[in-house]
């Protein structure tokens, strides 16, 4: 007979207020195999853990059931407690009587009955628990950072400083990301590029950082400590080793294309560096727009290049590399404007996004930072800023607040006045949110010193009238309709994850929310970790945030990665699939459904009626298996069993609830 101990936690009043602990203890004592049932106000506390350890020894317990919060909260805690008392940590079961019971019920009698049922289930499972031993495996001490914006750069620098090799993968030809496109930064108004470019140069120069620009992650396999990643380094068509960055090629190139970096407001050449401070300062040929690649004519860049660096024959290179940890920092896009017809974006050149405003006001941007109307290059007089375009808009846009728009719009109002003292800013807002150090002060300055007019209300329609734009809105504070003759309308568009974030999440095996922002492992306590071990999150790919928060999060993600790389070996989770070869028919449905490529086939030779016979069976790679259980569900004969969650245990649980 088992000797099972049941420990019931009050969690203060979290559980005890809704579940009658005394009844639960009495019932638990009657359950099969239970020799002890006791309670503690806080089972996770020092005294609670001492109680568990002491009882294991005194009562010679061989299985332990803790009725407390979710196993995601404290399973590890209690496993360690049991291990300290000499019990195999995998002989501990958690009955989640908080999240699954007391927190979601009000009726104490009913909740008590449910708590007892949950404990009975856990006891039934515990009775069939077997001690499991984790395996040790070696960690690859190299990190991958995906995304070369400020988050990726910071994470790469921090990891590299700790002494580990880092590959920094960036899709575009240069690192820098969104921050490189910005003009000034709130609330200090220091120049974005001036503070970013030294970091870009540092990253490029760091001996531990290997920049892979114009590259994309194509495939991710493996697991924490041993990811195997395939990176496609797209053909630059310029030999990086020979190029001196003189710029003659793009000076002479005859093909002009809208510049992505300038948000389409200026033209770049088909051979180009995205911006003057680009790192690396090596041009790329945009093959879709290059005359050589489309018509096999021209070739001017190749002719003029003094270093003979232009190479039309270059092809994509696939790099396969192993990594111990991955930091994901893929940044944001702006919401598409197709659904917001009332703002007229795309119908008139003077209706622009705030990102386009950043380029117009930037000294290296189109027009040299003079901030002129795109339509006629005249200085704007009245400028209307619209907050929350797509943000806080459940019906058409995104329900969330994009967080940075209030502040950057205040910044835009200030910058406008600095460039054109006679200009007037009108800001339509729902609320002004300025939670942050010096944020409210900055916003007040925009209103008081720079005379921005804030109108609490929504814009109904923007339409061209002569060489002006008529903005119809409402000021809900005075309850009056407002019509403004504007020269420029700036839309503070909602931040969204990159358009292809969903695909990346799937490739990496990390979770994403309804809006495709990557999901952290715990919103409070594990904000930079993903649900998948060894994958960390930094920056706006996880949710809207500003630069200092991004930098802080990148540092935190780097710290987590460093802590991982610091270990020579890791222990694997022993809750993996195991094959019963006598039952396995070798159909290999498991192999097809396994998302981790952890299953392979293996020939088995056995004697049947005196004859040798060979047949195929499935085999599980314990290091690759993540214990998801897909194989177990797909296996018809029940030959696949997830250790720690075996078929027997699940059936025992069902019986304990239903019978």
């Amino acid at each position, binding site marked *: 007979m088992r000797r099972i101990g049941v420990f019931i936690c009050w969690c203060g009043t979290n559980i005890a207020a809704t579940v009658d602990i005394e009844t639960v203890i009495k019932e638990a004592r009657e359950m099969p195999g239970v020799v002890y049932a006791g309670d503690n106000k806080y089972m996770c506390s020092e005294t609670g853990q001492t109680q568990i350890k002491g009882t294991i020894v005194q009562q010679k317990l061989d299985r332990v059931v803790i009725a407390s919060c979710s196993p995601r909260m404290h399973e590890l805690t209690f496993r360690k407690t049991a291990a300290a008392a000499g019990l195999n940590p995998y002989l501990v079961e958690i009955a989640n009587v908080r999240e699954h019971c007391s927190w979601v019920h009000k009726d104490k009698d009913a909740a008590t009955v449910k708590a007892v049922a949950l404990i009975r289930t856990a006891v039934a499972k515990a009775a069939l628990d077997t001690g499991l031993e984790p395996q040790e495996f070696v960690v690859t001490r190299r990190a991958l950072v995906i995304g070369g914006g400020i988050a990726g750069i910071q994470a790469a620098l921090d990891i590299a400083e700790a002494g580990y090799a880092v590959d920094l993968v960036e899709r575009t030809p240069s690192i820098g990301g969104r921050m490189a496109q910005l003009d000034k930064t709130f609330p200090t108004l220091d120049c974005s590029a001036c503070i970013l470019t030294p970091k870009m140069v540092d990253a490029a120069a760091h001996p531990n950082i290997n920049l892979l620009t114009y590259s994309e992650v194509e495939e991710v396999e493996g697991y924490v400590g041993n990811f195997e990643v395939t990176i496609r380094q797209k053909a630059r068509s310029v030999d990086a080793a020979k190029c001196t960055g003189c710029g003659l090629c793009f000076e002479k190139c005859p093909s002009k294309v809208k510049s992505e970096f300038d948000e389409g407001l200026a033209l770049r050449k088909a051979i180009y560096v995205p911006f003057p401070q680009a790192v690396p300062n090596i041009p790329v040929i945009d093959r879709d727009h290059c005359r050589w690649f489309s018509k096999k004519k021209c070739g001017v860049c190749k002719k003029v290049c003094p270093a003979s660096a232009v190479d039309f024959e270059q092809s994509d290179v696939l790099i396969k590399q192993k990594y111990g940890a991955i930091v994901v920092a893929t940044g944001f896009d702006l919401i598409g404007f197709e659904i917001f017809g009332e703002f007229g974006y795309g119908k008139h050149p003077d209706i622009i996004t705030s990102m386009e405003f950043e380029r117009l006001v930037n000294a290296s941007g189109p027009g040299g930072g003079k901030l002129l109307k795109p339509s006629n290059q005249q200085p704007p007089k009245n400028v209307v800023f619209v907050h929350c375009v797509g943000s806080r808009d459940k019906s058409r846009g995104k329900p969330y607040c994009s967080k940075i728009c209030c502040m950057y719009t205040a910044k835009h109002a200030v910058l406008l006045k600095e460039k054109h003292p006679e200009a007037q800013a009108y800001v339509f807002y729902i609320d002004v949110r300025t939670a942050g150090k010096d944020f409210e002060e900055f916003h007040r300055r925009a209103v008081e010193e720079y005379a921005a007019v804030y109108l609490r209300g929504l814009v109904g329609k923007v339409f061209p009238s002569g060489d002006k734009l008529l903005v119809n809105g409402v000021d809900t504070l005075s309850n009056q309709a407002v019509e403004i003759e504007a020269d420029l309308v700036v839309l503070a568009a909602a931040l969204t994850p990159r358009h292809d974030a969903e695909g990346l999440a799937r490739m990496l095996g990390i979770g994403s929310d309804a809006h495709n922002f990557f999901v952290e492992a715990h919103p409070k306590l594990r904000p930079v970790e993903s649900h998948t071990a060894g994958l960390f999150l930094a920056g706006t790919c996880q949710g809207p945030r500003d630069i200092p928060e991004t930098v802080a999060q990148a540092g935190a993600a780097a710290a987590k990665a460093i802590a991982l790389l610091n270990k020579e070996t890791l222990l694997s989770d022993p809750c993996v699939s195991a094959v019963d070869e006598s039952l396995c*028919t070798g159909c290999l449905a498991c192999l*097809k459904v396994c998302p981790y490529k952890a299953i392979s086939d293996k020939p088995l030779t056995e004697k049947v009626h005196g004859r040798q016979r060979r047949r195929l069976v499935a085999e599980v790679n314990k290091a690759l298996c993540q214990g998801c259980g897909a194989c177990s569900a797909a296996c*018809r004969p029940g030959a696949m069993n997830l250790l720690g969650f075996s078929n027997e245990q699940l*059936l025992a649980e069902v019986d304990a609830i239903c019978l």
Partner: protein
Amino acid sequence: MKEIMQKMRAEAARVLSSGEVDLVLGWEKGDLWWQSYPVFIENEKKAELLTWDLFCVPNLAKYLLEEIWHKKRVALFFKGCDALGFNQLMQDKRVDREKAFIFAVPCSGLVDPQKVERAGLHQGLLRVERLGDELTFVYKDREKKTAAPWFYYDKCLTCRYPNPVVFDFMLGEPVPVNPRERFTAVKELEGQNVDARFQYWQRQFSRCIRCFACRNVCPACSCRECIFDLTSPRWLGKATELSENQFYHITRAFHMAGRCVDCGECARVCPVQIPLTSLNRKLIKDIDELYGPYDAGVDPQKVPPLVTFNPGDPAAFLESKGV
């Protein structure tokens, strides 16, 4: 049919005497008009036992599970439905294509003895013959002719693959493919409300005696040890009662999902006439509608829809707003 039978015997004798195979699986005539049984022939002299008539319904493919390991090579005869079952066994890696020498027998339908009995034509019946679309019931002193499809198995009337999709040697000419709509019964059930459907299936399953004939005959049921036979863990209680019967049939249907070749053998062998075809076809129909048309057993190289994941797969269960 007689011509094909002659060819069958000649070919069987040929492949046995040449040593190409060391066993032939076919059918032989039993004592009564409706009996055509599987027969194992190892000696070419016994090839004369082979028969091909309107009652050669058992699928021979599943015998390969036991025999193929010991034999060098086995020859066998497949109707269209049998070939689909063989392909499913191949997909499950339970048979070895190299070890099977397959004779294809195009089949335009077989006679259901129960339909003959119900029509009162069975008394004193000696044999049934077919010429074109006409059946001749032969008695001691008289003959009766009728239209053939009246007496075909229901499964033959909806058959979409009467010509074997896998073979080494074809006996006879391919027959025309002209199936009736197979989802009629399923659509009728779908039209009923949840309670009515539940009651319908309860009525059906309450008859089950758990003889497991449906499982044993099924070409997609080829596990070394069936979970319904396991004692640890004991998935299925031994008592023959409604809830266990339901569990058995529903679980089996899910094990068949995306793998059922719709050969109809389960329903044919059921001694209590549970309409298992409707259960299987409901899953076939759902899979067709959710993931695009897929016919199990047609191409064993094709990856079945339920063991693949496509980001675009419909996920109605995720989007439903609750009941």
